[in-house]
């Protein structure tokens, strides 16, 4: 008996010790917890943040996760009432309804309190307008962007020359299809085109939604009736499958952005339509196709101007206990001097793209990134608020900016993948997508 008690006592003591070890001290300088995505620009920011700490004595604790896990974790944190992140990285998709839900604080009062000199130095007008508005809700800005992108076409100049083809500045999807078919197997095993096929609202749907828009389709009509039964939508689905089947990579279901990059960078494809940030990766020193890449605008069909719009931005959690310090970091990480700082510390090719107009008039940046002006044009012209031919009740080019889109987009992208893989007929896939969208519209209270 006493022996049993002794064992229990030891266990108790042991677990208390572990509990005590788990609790860390809460005193000293201000500490901010930052949740961020693991893209290269953010990793650089994490590296360089020691400078920020040195000058402001604000300590930063970073939690770095891939996009899906990050979104899950920050939503969980605010939605389930934990509120431990001071600063969260959110995208243009999240910002509007995060602002609406009151999960992040409006930055307007912070800007209003800034002394004029600092306000001028930060220069909000320098932030690209399309991105600024995509990060706002009710005319208040909720997040400051540190990374921006649109989409464009990448093609192999050398293969085009060999086949005697010329890429127009603003190609149509029909032209892209013809090019791809012509260039297929021009070298042994070369794909005419590589396109994302990985299911996911942020994977295949990013380029595919712009194809829908280009063909004149849309997700919902003005009354929030799902529009999967419209002929233009059907056309878009059939086209995407056809171009993949006739000239694309085989079995696209496992190819997301990174896999497509690997394919293009190793010289295995003649064409690729994807994010503008790719230009930097394709021209990197270890890329086998550096110096052989040409660029063109996002393809059109019935509608032009189909480049998508995306930005990663920093926002302040509404339950943060140090919002002023957090705002200081937001400003530091997104202002002009940070960009020059990255340029001088890490290199001008690694500067975060797509946030400020001044980046694109900086001669050092333009020298390092010859494609820069084109990227700027794509981002500036992306029509976030009117992405489709026919009127729609939502905003967002490559997504529908409602919270339910995470799930609806995933479902529809799976239907698309099943259709592309030949597991489902187009009628079945479209019907199931329509049903899923209808459920969302009803249950979310959009469709009256």
């Amino acid at each position, binding site marked *: 008996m006493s022996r049993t008690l002794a064992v229990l006592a030891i266990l108790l003591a042991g677990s208390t010790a572990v509990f005590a070890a788990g609790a860390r001290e809460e005193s000293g300088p201000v500490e901010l917890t930052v949740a961020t995505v693991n893209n290269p620009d953010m990793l650089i920011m994490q590296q360089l943040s020691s400078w920020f700490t040195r000058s402001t004595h604000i300590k930063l604790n970073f939690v770095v996760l891939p996009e899906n896990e990050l979104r899950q974790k920050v939503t969980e944190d605010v939605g389930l009432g934990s509120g431990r992140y001071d600063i969260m990285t959110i995208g243009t998709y999240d910002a509007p309804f995060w602002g609406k*839900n009151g999960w992040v604080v409006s930055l307007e009062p912070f800007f209003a309190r800034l002394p004029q000199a600092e306000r001028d130095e930060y220069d909000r007008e320098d932030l690209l307008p399309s991105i600024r508005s995509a990060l706002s809700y009710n005319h208040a800005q909720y997040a400051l962007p540190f990374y921006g992108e649109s989409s464009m076409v990448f093609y192999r100049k050398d293969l085009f020359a060999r086949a005697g083809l010329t890429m127009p500045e603003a190609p149509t999807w029909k032209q892209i299809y013809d090019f791809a078919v012509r260039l297929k197997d021009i070298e042994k*095993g070369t794909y005419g085109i590589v396109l994302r096929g990985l299911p996911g609202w942020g994977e295949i749907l990013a380029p595919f939604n712009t194809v829908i828009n280009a063909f004149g389709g849309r997700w919902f009509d003005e009354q929030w009736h799902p529009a999967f039964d419209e002929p233009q939508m059907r056309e878009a689905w059939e086209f995407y499958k056809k171009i993949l089947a006739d000239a694309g990579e085989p079995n696209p279901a496992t190819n997301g952005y990174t896999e497509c990059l690997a*394919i293009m960078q190793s010289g295995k494809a003649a064409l690729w339509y994807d994010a503008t940030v790719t230009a930097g990766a394709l021209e990197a020193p270890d890329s086998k196709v550096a110096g052989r890449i040409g660029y063109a605008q996002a393809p059109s069909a019935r509608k032009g101007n189909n480049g998508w719009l995306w930005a990663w931005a920093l926002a302040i959690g509404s339950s943060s206990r140090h919002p002023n310090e957090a705002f200081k970091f937001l400003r530091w990480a997104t202002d002009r001097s940070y960009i020059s700082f990255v340029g001088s510390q890490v290199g001008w090719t690694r500067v975060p793209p797509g946030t400020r107009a001044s980046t694109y008039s900086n001669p050092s940046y333009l020298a390092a990134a010859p494609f820069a002006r084109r990227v700027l044009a794509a981002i500036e012209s992306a029509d976030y608020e009117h992405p489709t031919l026919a009127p729609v009740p939502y905003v967002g080019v490559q997504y529908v900016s409602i*919270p339910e889109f995470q*799930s609806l987009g995933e479902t529809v992208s799976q239907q698309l*993948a099943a259709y592309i893989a030949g597991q489902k007929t187009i009628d079945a896939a479209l019907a199931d997508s329509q049903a899923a969208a209808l459920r969302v519209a009803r249950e979310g209270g959009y469709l009256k």
Partner: protein
Amino acid sequence: MLDELNRPRSRLLTLPAIVIVAVITQAPILVTLGLSLMQWIVVRPDMGVTFVGLNNYIDILVSRDFYAVVLNTALITLISLAACTLLGILFGLMLNQDFPGVNIVRTLIISPFFVMDAVAGIIWRTMMLNSSFGFNESFASLLGIKPVDFFGVYSLLTIIILIVWQWTPFFVLIMLAGFRSISVEVVDSARVDGAGWFRELLSIRLPIIMNHIEVAILLGLIFVLKVFGLIFVTTRGGPGYSSANLPFYVYRTAFLGWDVGHAAALAVVTVAITLVAISVLFRWFRRRFAESAS
């Protein structure tokens, strides 16, 4: 000594276990049950949290996707368990020898178990089976055929293969421990002269390690039913729902749809189904091999 164990004092030995296990694991189950009766969509705080009774359960039971997912789960589980058991026994026998380097061979066979399932999934998806730059593509172009669509058309089969690859080591460990516990004398005394190794396996070795086989299958059933990471990084349950199992379906509902109520109801249904499956299996084992109780 055996009778002494019936004294109340010795039952105190079970108290810490019961308390900790109860608090840690029953509490979440109770909370899950509670949540399953609510409607709570995290990303729509404007819709609030409301009591909806059994509506979530009804929604699930009338949804076509749910049954597809249950079927997938059943197929995955049954086929994986059968394959794992078979391979576990065969590999266990194979590793039950002594030869130079047997430790290395054992570690190699067990190694898939040491790696995180999410990482394993990525390795298979890109380096092994990718149709453009994996070994899949290398073999295909060598043979002059089109690369097999592992994660598209054959998604369910591929998931089963990956699960078997990762969980066979678990079975091997248990079977090996069982084989190791069989002494040579026991085998010799029961052996019929001239009987081959297969006969010996079936009539002598397997019955002796039946306890181990039972544990392996029961625990294996639970683990395979809970597989999530592999599916998450490879097929994401698709295309469509063709490779989604119950845990993945719960993930989709909870962390993409942020529909806590439906997800909780799904979780409860999953537990119910698993409980039924295990009790059936458990009772079958009890009846067939009743002599193992002490």
